[in-house]
């Protein structure tokens, strides 16, 4: 596959250096001509070089410092994205796709300057196929706005990383979230994507307009781009797998005297085959932070947050078995919630965790990291890390969620100083 052949299809582009020399001699060229060319494509109202706008686009929710781009553009459709990308390609300018900047990994930082493509104006829900359980959305559509749109249809998109993130951004970062244990992460829920490559070519990762629920045909380009974090292309449409809203949902909180007890309970719930929708562990430091920040009243100890989805009858069964497991592991202070408001309040603690923790030490910065271990090692790693944290005198806390895919447990712990 000759990568440089499409460049011959763009005779109008004046290449400054051969593509092979990119790494060796980047001759970046941001000047009046480039700005005019970008403005001609997107419209004069849709580009900006004002310092406030650049700063806003160089930062996300992570602790990383602000690395602003040289210019921000707001394309309104994929053809504009393609032409803008071609201009950047011709002038060796880095491209930084920008969704909602709710990421935690510094993904929008323009480390070498360049052009930030703010895709917020591309906010259409392109096509909903309720009977086929799929929907195609543009990058400006966020998770909550999609679920709001779907509310009369009985369907929802369950991947919930906490923030109200752009769905294409979630695809780019392969977002996971509290519901991953039952519904999977973005990798399992993205069926197709329309992507604009660095030189402006538009491609579909699973074929144009395709939305097959399963396929054995062709290379799995979709999962190559999911998680590529903007390094392989700009995602301009994504086709997502929807799920039926469960008939009933019940949330529960249970306190345990030790970390080991809570973790053992988690492992046993999974081993019993209970189709738990969410199961999250928050340690005592985190519970204290949440109590203070969200004005809640939970016991300050290792706590499990659980959520069950299903029919009324299956829920009764799931709850009964889980109840026995929790009791067997010395769990106490159970709180059950069925109503939407009570459940939202319960989960508010988890969703505000990041901010609650930072509020514990005002003015501090927080650094988060993710670790993945086999399920059998889950108790050991949590206990060992907590000991390390205490010894190193860093303030830190655990926020694991359990994902049974490939029998590994995935969690993040967040130490900071």
């Amino acid at each position, binding site marked *: 596959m000759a990568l440089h052949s499409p460049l011959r299809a763009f005779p109008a582009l004046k290449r400054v250096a051969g593509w092979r020399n990119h790494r060796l001699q980047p001759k970046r060229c941001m000047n009046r001509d480039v700005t005019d060319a970008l403005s001609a494509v997107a419209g004069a109202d849709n580009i900006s070089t004002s310092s406030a706008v650049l700063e806003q686009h160089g930062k996300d929710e992570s602790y990383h410092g602000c690395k602003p781009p040289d210019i921000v553009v707001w394309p309104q459709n994929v053809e504009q994205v393609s032409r803008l990308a071609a201009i950047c390609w011709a002038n060796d300018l880095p491209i930084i796709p920008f969704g909602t900047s709710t990421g935690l990994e510094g993904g929008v930082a323009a480390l070498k300057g360049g052009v930030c493509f703010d895709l917020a104006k591309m906010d259409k829900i392109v096509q909903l196929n309720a009977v086929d359980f799929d929907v195609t959305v543009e990058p400006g559509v966020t998770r909550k706005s999609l679920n709001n*749109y779907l*509310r*009369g249809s*009985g*369907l929802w998109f369950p991947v919930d990383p906490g923030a109200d993130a752009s769905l294409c951004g979630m695809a780019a970062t392969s977002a996971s979230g509290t519901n991953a244990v039952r519904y999977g992460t973005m990798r399992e829920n993205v069926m197709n994507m329309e992507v604009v490559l660095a030189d402006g070519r538009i491609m579909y990762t699973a074929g144009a307009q395709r939305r097959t629920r399963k396929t054995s045909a062709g290379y799995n380009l979709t999962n190559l781009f999911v998680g590529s974090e903007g390094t392989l292309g700009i995602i301009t449409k994504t086709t997502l797998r929807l799920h*039926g*809203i469960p*008939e009933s949902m019940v949330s529960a909180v249970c306190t345990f005297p030790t970390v080991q007890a809570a973790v053992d309970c988690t492992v046993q719930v999974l081993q019993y085959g209970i189709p738990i929708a969410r199961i999250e562990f928050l340690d005592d430091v985190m519970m204290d932070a949440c109590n203070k920040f969200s004005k809640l009243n939970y016991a300050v100890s290792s706590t499990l947050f659980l959520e069950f989805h299903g029919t009324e009858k299956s829920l009764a069964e799931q709850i009964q078995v889980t109840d026995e497991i929790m009791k067997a592991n010395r769990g106490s202070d159970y709180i059950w919630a069925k109503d939407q408001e009570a459940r*939202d309040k319960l989960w508010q603690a988890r969703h505000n965790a990041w901010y609650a923790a930072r509020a514990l030490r005002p003015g501090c910065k927080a650094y988060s990291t993710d670790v993945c271990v086999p399920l059998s090692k889950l108790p050991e790693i949590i206990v060992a890390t907590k000991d390390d944290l205490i010894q190193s005198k860093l303030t830190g806390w655990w926020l694991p969620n359990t994902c049974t895919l490939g029998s590994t447990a995935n969690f993040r712990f967040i130490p900071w100083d």
Partner: protein
Amino acid sequence: MALRVLVAVKRVIDYAVKIRVKPDKTGVVTDGVKHSMNPFCEIAVEEAVRMKEKKQAEEVIAVSCGPVQCQETIRTALAMGVDRGIHVEVSGKDYESLGPLQVSKVLAALAKKEKVDLILVGKQAIDDDCNQTGQMTAALLDWPQGTFVSEVSIGEGGLTVTREVDGGLETIKVQVPAVLTSDLRLNEPRYATLPNIMKAKKKRIDKLSLGDLALSAGGNLETVSVVEPPTRSAGVKVENAEELVQKLREIGHI
């Protein structure tokens, strides 16, 4: 005492849609635009369904006035747990002139026909922001009313209702039969699930016309024009306080 509850639901343009004014300034663009149930009506339906679940309500009926598309809105209410629906068909010019007074007359007529103990409506619709239907219905029926309800409980003597008012919260006791209008913090409405949507298809929706209720269409209000708010113009920067004072004088503010 198990109440018979009537909930009114209105089909409006979805709150997330960007509204555009028609070029001839007679109204807003509604063709091809996503419509859904008025959010305050959803809250009213949710409250009625919860009363049913707590066995405080014996039957919950949803009613909507408007063109045939209103049946989708009634189906959403049925999927949330309402027992049956009534569609009062009003279309064309009659629908354009349909306002709170006409709807209140419909609700009053239905309340008598269905021997209802409690009428639940949203406090206002997000398209006209009238905040009149609940109050007018209560007046037509000569029933007590609890408006801007953020909490309601059913007891022996009647309803204990907490209202959100400008000064804070007011708690009143209301005898049934009564009209209540729901405010935002009353509850968080459930999402209709697929199994419930499928079950809702089998629930009954009765169709009536205004004539069946001995009413006629025709409002006494005429929409003269609908325009967008003026676009915000750029601000003016001033160099110092003297210039600020001078500019304020120029535009007559001081």
